[in-house]
Structures are given as C-alpha cells and as structure tokens.
C-alpha cells in the first residue's frame, strides 16, 4: 500500500466513511452486465449449491441444487445455468464492425492488410468477490471437458451441448480476468476497493457487505459501525443478517438451517420414489423450502452487487478505459472465433510457450494499466509523483536549442519549477502528453538555479551532484521514495525535448510548452510495449520441456473420470 493510500485510509477512519482513491472510474462497466452470485457446498470442489443470475436486477433467476451430493441434480443445475448464461454470451457475437489488420501472407511472406471482424461490444460478467472469480474458473474447468451424447454415445452422463460450451467460455473469462485492467469478468470487491479507501484493512475489504458499508454507510451511522454490523450482526436464530458474499456459506447457516432442510428433502424424495401417498407434494414443499433458504442467502448479496454497480456508475469513466475495453472486445471476438472454428477446449495445462506468452501479456498489461490510470487521473498521478516516478510544475523558462547532427533537429530546453522530488539521473527519459493527446519524449538535462536558469552549460555540474544525491536518497528512504531534504520546497529542473515536435527544423506550433504552462512529466512510458517475441512452439528450448511431441495425436483432452461412488 502506498503512503498516499494509507493516508486516504486514515482519512476514512477519521471521517467514518470511505474516501476516494480515484477521481474517475478506471474500469469499463457494461450497459447490461450479467450478474452472477454463486453458492457452493462447503468443503466440496465444484459442487455448486445454487446461484442467482441475470441481467435484470429486479428479476434474478434463482437456480438451486437441492442435494449437492446427487450427481444428476448437479448436472441439471449446470445445464440450467448454461441456459441462462450462454444466450447472454452469444447475444454479443453478431454485432460486429470490420477492422483492418496486417497479416503475413503465407505464400509471399509479405504483410498484407486483411479485414477482420471485431465485436462492437462484449458481454460482461460481474461477481461479488474475488472468491467468486475463482469459482467461475473452477466451474469452467469442471464443465469444459464434459462429453455430449453426440461426441460419445457411450458416456454415462451425457451433457447438453451448452454445458461444455459454457465451460469453455467461463474458462476464457476466468483466464482473461487475470490480465490486469481487463473487464470481461469483474468482482465488485475489487472494483470498489480500487476506487475507494475504507477505514479498514484490505483483508476486511474482501467482505462485500462491509466494504459497501464504508463506501455508502446508512444515514447517521459511521462506516466502521455499519461495517461491523454487516460483518457479524446475527438475528435471534444466530443467522448472519448480511450473509457472506459467497461462494462459501456461513457454517451456522449450513448446520442449523440447510442440513435439516436437506434431510427433509432426502426423506421426501425417498417417499416419493417409493410411491408413498402425498410424497410428491412433500417433495415439492421440501424443495420450495430449500429454494427459500438459498434465496435468503443470495438475495442480500445480489442487491449489494447492484448497489455497488450504482456507486461505480456515479463516477465518470476514465479517458483511456475505452481503449482497454477494446482489447477485451478483441479477446471476446478471438474466443468466439475459436469456438466457431471448432477448436478443442482449452488444455488442462498450458504449454511452455503459451504460458510464457500469457505471463508476458499480463506484465505488459500491468505496465499499461499503471500508465493509463495515472494519465487519466490526477489523484493516481499524485501517488506516482510522491513515489518519485513523475513530476508536475510550471514552466519558467524555454530556451531553443538544436542538435549537432548534419540536419539539426530542435532540442529545446524547458525549465520546470516543481516541488516534486523525482528519481532523476542524467539523461533519464521523460514522457508527457501534449494537448492533442500524443506523447512527447524528453530527457533530464540537469538542475537550474531558481533565480536565473542558465541552461545546459551550467547544468553539467549540478547535474552530477543532483543525480547522485537523488540516487542516495532513494536508497535511504526506500519505500516512500523521494526525499525532502533541507532547502525544502521547489527546485527547477531542465528537460531537453527530444521528440513529438514534428519533422521540420522548427518545432510545430503547440508542441513546445510556453512559459507559464503547467506540465507533468513522467519517468514511465505511456504506451509500454512487451518484450521480444517468444519462439514458436516447435522451437521450445529444452529448458522448457522442448518442442511438443509431434508423434502424439493432437486429440482433445480426456474428460474427467467418473468414480463409481459419488462425491462426499
């Protein structure tokens, strides 16, 4: 946690309500997201208990598994879930726009432009908490290798075609959610805690109810008190008033309410199967009771999820969010194409090259997200400035200069007065955004006297000491970065512009800041690029397992074996 976030948390403690960490919303929120609130059986992997799902906050669809130990009921639940989610996912597949992309022609080896489809919008899944995201991945894994009757007439438990299909989609969404800044699958706790600092720890922020209590406490109640209630207030029967956001249920609910209701259900089911008079009716009643119980656990979280969405919508969207959402649309379109092309489900384990590619992509996305958020949001930038990764200030002097090349290029020297303490060394690359949104590069040329900036000549010496001093400072103070040494406030830094001024001998108008302008330079790149390309799978180095075995038939992965006895 950075110092500025820590400070915001302490302000939240003092104010009794959450304090903003951002001035804009840094994640895309769909017009019509699909909310998914799952519940799972305690201690059991992939045995869902129920779910609330839908795009209409007033009309959620409740799905339950009356007896999670019954494989047929579980499979029926998954089929129903697929009925709910798959049409939503498919509904975005056909609204497309055409994009031009360069592709290498396999025959000539030249790059040729081709028209490719890009979906205009993409479906967005919202879950209450990070555990919900993990559950989506788990569901995806448990469903995508299921066999349909068509694929394998012998399979003992054939699944409707939608089940493995949804499994592949959920896997894709789960995988995508690991890319920083992606918005196909989001959890409300992450969303809210990105935008607000509460007066409690990160750990406690994992509880959606308690997090919301801080962000939007009821009238006349402090956030701390409301959060405590949300976390632990129990009714006369010992049940939580604000059930956990799942997917795990509260043990008290399991033991006191759910288990007895399930026993009644089992008994009624046994009677019904034996044809005892009235058994069917009792079975319906028992199932209805279970539905009511699970709804009582799901509905508060469902409402909390939508309340969180409302709060987030009240923030204006950051300028670069659309750019990143476009990547999500590409991701969605790409998976749509793979499904349409009949490719097999995602493998259980990635091969070395795919895994390395994913990691590299996530690193690039993280760097890009960090840059985007800072550029979109002065409050995030303030954190980077405090950390010595950027500085902002007023231009106090501009001196024209040119490079020594045969064709001289403009290399103006801009003196900026700033109170920030960036980690600068000689010729450190600097970046800033020009008025038209383009990036301009520069480099640090030294410190200048505050009274009369002399330009580059004198900056050499001060540069040395300044640079060295800066480096020492960062070693000493470590975490908080910049040092606030004696002498205090403002310093003047000289920046030599190295780009973004057009092609001519004279810089294009508007590309060089003028005296009195406010400018903000960053030490980080604005559009960070990934590392070098990775080798083809065929040339995987032996250190990473070597090339895939060509002799092995490229067949789809085996479905999970079914054990004779059921789970539990």
């Amino acid at each position, binding site marked *: 946690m950075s110092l500025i976030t820590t400070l915001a948390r302490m302000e939240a403690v003092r104010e009794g309500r959450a304090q903003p960490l951002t*001035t804009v919303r840094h994640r895309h929120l769909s017009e019509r997201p699909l909310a998914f609130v799952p519940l799972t059986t305690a201690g059991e992997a992939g045995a869902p208990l129920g779910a609330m799902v839908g795009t209409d906050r007033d009309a959620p669809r409740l799905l339950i598994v009356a007896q999670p130990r019954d494989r047929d009921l579980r499979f029926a639940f998954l089929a129903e879930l697929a009925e709910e989610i798959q049409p939503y996912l498919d509904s975005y597949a056909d609204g497309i726009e055409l994009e031009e992309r360069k592709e290498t022609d396999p025959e000539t080896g030249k790059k040729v432009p081709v028209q490719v489809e890009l979906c205009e919008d993409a479906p967005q899944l919202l879950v209450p908490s990070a555990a919900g995201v993990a559950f989506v991945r788990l569901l995806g894994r448990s469903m995508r290798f299921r066999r349909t009757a068509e694929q394998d007439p012998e399979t003992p438990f054939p699944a409707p075609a939608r089940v493995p299909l949804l499994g592949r989609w959920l896997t894709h969404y789960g995988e995508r959610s690991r890319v920083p800044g992606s918005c196909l699958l989001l959890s409300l706790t992450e969303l809210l805690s990105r935008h607000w600092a509460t007066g409690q720890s990160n750990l406690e922020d994992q509880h959606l109810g308690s997090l919301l209590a801080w962000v939007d406490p009821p009238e006349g109640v402090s956030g701390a008190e409301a959060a405590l209630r949300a976390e632990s207030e129990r009714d006369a029967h010992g049940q939580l008033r604000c059930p956990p956001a799942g997917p795990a249920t509260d043990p008290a609910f399991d033991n006191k309410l759910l288990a007895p209701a399930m026993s009644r259900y089992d008994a009624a089911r046994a009677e019904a199967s034996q044809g005892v008079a009235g058994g069917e009716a009792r079975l319906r009643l028992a199932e209805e009771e279970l539905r009511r119980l699970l709804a009582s656990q799901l509905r508060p979280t469902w409402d909390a999820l939508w309340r969180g969405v409302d709060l987030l919508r009240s923030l204006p969207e950051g300028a670069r969010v659309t750019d990143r959402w476009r990547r999500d649309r590409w991701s969605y379109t790409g998976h749509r194409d793979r499904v349409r092309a009949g490719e097999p489900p995602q493998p259980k384990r990635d091969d070395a090259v795919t895994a390395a590619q994913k990691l590299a992509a996530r690193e690039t996305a993280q760097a890009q997200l960090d840059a985007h958020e800072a550029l979109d949001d002065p409050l995030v930038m303030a954190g980077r400035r405090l950390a010595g990764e950027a500085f902002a200030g007023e231009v106090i002097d501009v001196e024209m200069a040119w490079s020594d090349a045969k064709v001289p290029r403009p290399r103006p020297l801009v003196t900026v007065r700033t109170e920030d303490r960036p980690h600068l060394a000689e010729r450190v690359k600097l970046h800033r955004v020009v008025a038209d949104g383009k990036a301009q590069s520069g480099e640090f040329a030294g410190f200048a006297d505050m009274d009369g900036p002399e330009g580059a000549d004198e900056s050499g010496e001060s540069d040395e000491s300044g640079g060295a001093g800066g480096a020492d400072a960062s070693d000493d103070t470590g975490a908080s970065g910049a040092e606030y040494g004696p002498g205090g406030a403002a310093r003047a830094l000289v920046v030599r512009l190295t780009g973004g001024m057009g092609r001519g001998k004279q810089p294009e108008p508007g590309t060089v800041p003028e005296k009195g302008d406010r400018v903000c330079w960053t030490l980080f790149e604005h559009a960070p690029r990934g590392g070098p390309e990775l080798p083809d799978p065929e040339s995987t180095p032996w250190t990473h397992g070597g090339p895939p075995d060509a002799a092995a038939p490229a067949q789809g992965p085996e479905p999970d074996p079914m054990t004779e006895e059921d789970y539990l």
Partner: protein
Amino acid sequence: MDARALAALAANPGCRRRALLDGAGVDKGALAQALGAPANFGQSQFAHQRGNSFEARVKADGGADLVRLLHERLRDGTEPPGPGAVATPDLAAPGPQGRTARTALALREATEAGRWALLDHPMVSLDVAGSPAFLEPDAVVVHPDGSWTVVEIKSFPMVDGSADPAKVGAAARQSAVYALALERVASMIGEPPEGGDDAAMAPGAAGPANAAETAGAADAADAAGVVVPAEAASPAGTAEAAAPAEAAGPAEAAGPVVPAPPAEAADAAGPVIPAEAATLAGTADAAGPADAAGPVIPADPAEAAEAADPAGATAPEGPAAPAGPAPARARVRHQVLLVCPKDFSNLPTAEMVDVRKQLAVTRRQLDRLTRIEEIAAALPEGTTFDLRLTDDGRTPTRPLEELTAAVDAVDAAYAPECLSACELAAHCRTRSRGAGLVEALGRGVRGELGGLTTVGAVLTAAMERSADDIPTGDPAVDALRRAAALRAEALASRPEAVACR
C-alpha cells in the same frame, strides 16, 4: 492447542495475549463470547463430513494406498512396497502424554525395523513458550531407511495438479509444526541408549519439551518407580506405563500453565496467576499436588512418568539387558506429503511440499515467543480469565468490565491477519481501533510511518502544517505532508466534485 493455532501463534510471535491465553489453555472462543465479540468461526458439517470421509478413504486398506502414493511421489527408484509391507502400529493410549509416549515408542520401533510403517494419528508434543502443546498429525510414514515423512490430508481439491496457493501455504505451515515436533523425537531416538541407568537417562531420552534440563530436577526415584511397569516388556506395557501418568491427576494437554490452587485449576478457562508465578515456575517447589493439574515444568510425578516411560518401553528386554544400538539415522524429511482429492473426484492425489522455509520460520518464531512465566510475572496479582460460569456451565457471570480489564492487562499485537486465526481477534480489533493504532489497517502500514503509531498522530503530522513549511527532518512526517498536499491538490482539481457516495 492444535498445529493450526500454533502456526497462527508463530505467525504473530509478538502477541503476548495470545501466548498467555493459549499457553494457559483458556477457551478463547468462550472468552470472546463473554466479551461480546464472538468470532465468526465454525465449521460446516458438510465440510466436516467431507473431510472425514476423504481421510478415511485415503487411509483405507491399512495405509497401503497412502504409502504407495508417497513412494510414487518420491521417484527414488526403490522397490514399491508390496502387499502387507506396511506396518500400522497401534497407537492407542490413554491421555495425551500416554499417546505421545506411545508414538515415540512406535516411531523408534518402526525406525529400527527398517520397513514401511504408517502411524495413523500419532501424537507429538512441542514446547511452546514454556508449556507443552500436544499435536496430532494426520499421519506419519516411516521409510525403510529410517526417515519419517509427515502426511497432511486436506479436502480441498488439487485440480490439474495445482491447488489454492493460500490453502497449500496454510497446510505447509501446519505440517512444519508437526515436523518440528517430530524432529525432537528423532533427535532423542538418535541418542545411544545408556544401558543400565534407565532412570537417569529416562527424561532425556524421550521427554518432550525441556525434559533434558529437568532431568536433574525430576526426582530420580520417582521416575524409576514409574519405569518399572514398563519392564513388562511389550508394547502393552507402555500403555500401562502411561496409565500412572494419567492417574497422577488431570494432566490435560492444555491445562493451565501457571500453577494454581486446585480449586481454580480444575477450571481450564480460569487459571489464577499468582504473582510469584515466575519464580514458582522455575523451581522444583512447584511439584506439589496442585501442580498435577498441568504445570509448566515437567518436574512433577505426572510429567516425569510421561518422560520416563518411553525410555522404559524402548528397552523391552529390560534395563539389565541393554538394548541394541539405536539407529542414529532417524530423521524427519523436510518434504511433507500433501494429499488432496484429485480434480472433482474423491480419489486421492498427492504432492511433496518442501517445508524447509516454513520450518525455519516456525522454529524461529517459537523461539521468539516470550516465555509465559515472564508474561505472567508482569500481570497484576490475582489476574484471572475465569468467566465464573453458572452451574450449567453456559452463562458467564463475571462482570464485563472486570473481564475486559483482565484481558487488557496483557498486551496484544493485533493485525488484521488475526481475524482468520484467533478467536479473540474481534475484541482485539475493537481495542486496537479504539486506541487508533495504525496496525488495524494492516501490518504493512507501519513501514512508512516511522515513529507514528496512531491514526491521530499520522493525520496531525500530515495536516497540521503545509508541505511548503520547513521540513521537520523526520522523513516520515515530511513524506506524509507531501502526500497530504498532493492528495488535496488532486482532489481539488476533480472535474466535478464527486460526492463520495
């Protein structure tokens, strides 16, 4: 105290409150309830059933499957254990001391036998802040080469060979505690037995905790007296040997650490700590009858018997005929076997987990734990955590203020991580927040705040004067001022004032 609690205690070695309450065997859950801040702990019966049925399945078949699984993971090219190759010694014995002794004996025998053996739910003990804690691993496997592997059976799934890292981490920490306790047993077994003088060597050979140092304090005659039945020369004899230990008094695993008058000692939740506790605990005077209820130092008959009986038992031929040279090869492997359900089935799968790091951390943290006597010595005289339950044992009658004062008499080191590990965390959190301590926001927060320890002090330092003011020279304060100024500047520049709602 179980291994999970121990791992949690080791994760927060600075918490004197927890060290004292755990060491004294106070029911923290009941205490938290009485304080009006109950913990949100509990286990679902579904998870419980699932855990039990999975463990039963893993150990079915006399442990042969489990040992096969372990052998498979070892990939050491040795012969797989054939049918009937796995010994499963009977570990039944009354009381935790008895079971610990029985386990030590079984381990020794199995190590000497040079064959596979599975110890199902053995019991080992570990000295925690000066008092013994008894631990029960799911299983321990003895290899033919005399090394031991801790087996941890968990019911979270291993999907495609990987499991939830947080849960694996917790399991590894827990296993490390077992491995640590086993290492002590191994080191004792490794010592060559000294033929005739059984009584003298007895406590050192097998006693848990600080048995070696108490060897002198323990009454030799006493120890020898208890060894006698063990000469009956059979494993059954050990069980008998353990019996006197039990009979000696309610020597409970988590009995009060600090010697207390018998009346209070009977109530585990409310040990009275006499002011002279520190001195008491260190001396042999403590070996009075009151001590039998669970003293710190195994200087009383009950403990001595417990310490002695493995020794007696390890010499089945009797002291007169010295046992053959004990193998010095007994050692605990630093890789534990984590057994989980495979994917979505209930078939077991396993992975070796290296716990060297967790072992080192746990060992270091346990060493750092302040000795309980020291904590107790600092308490006001007469401090007790007795809830004064009504006769039905349900309703505490102790006034809340009194109880709160008693709990507050010993310092806590609250951090949010406590919430998932300690029953008393909700209470400590309230107190920590009430005092405005910055750790309530997370342990990492302290790092950048230098000497500022309360939220109020931080906010004052940040807001009191502007950042342009002359630097104070305190880097934390200057950085905070700067942060506050930057934050205020950015918030003022918001396009439209977004209400924080």
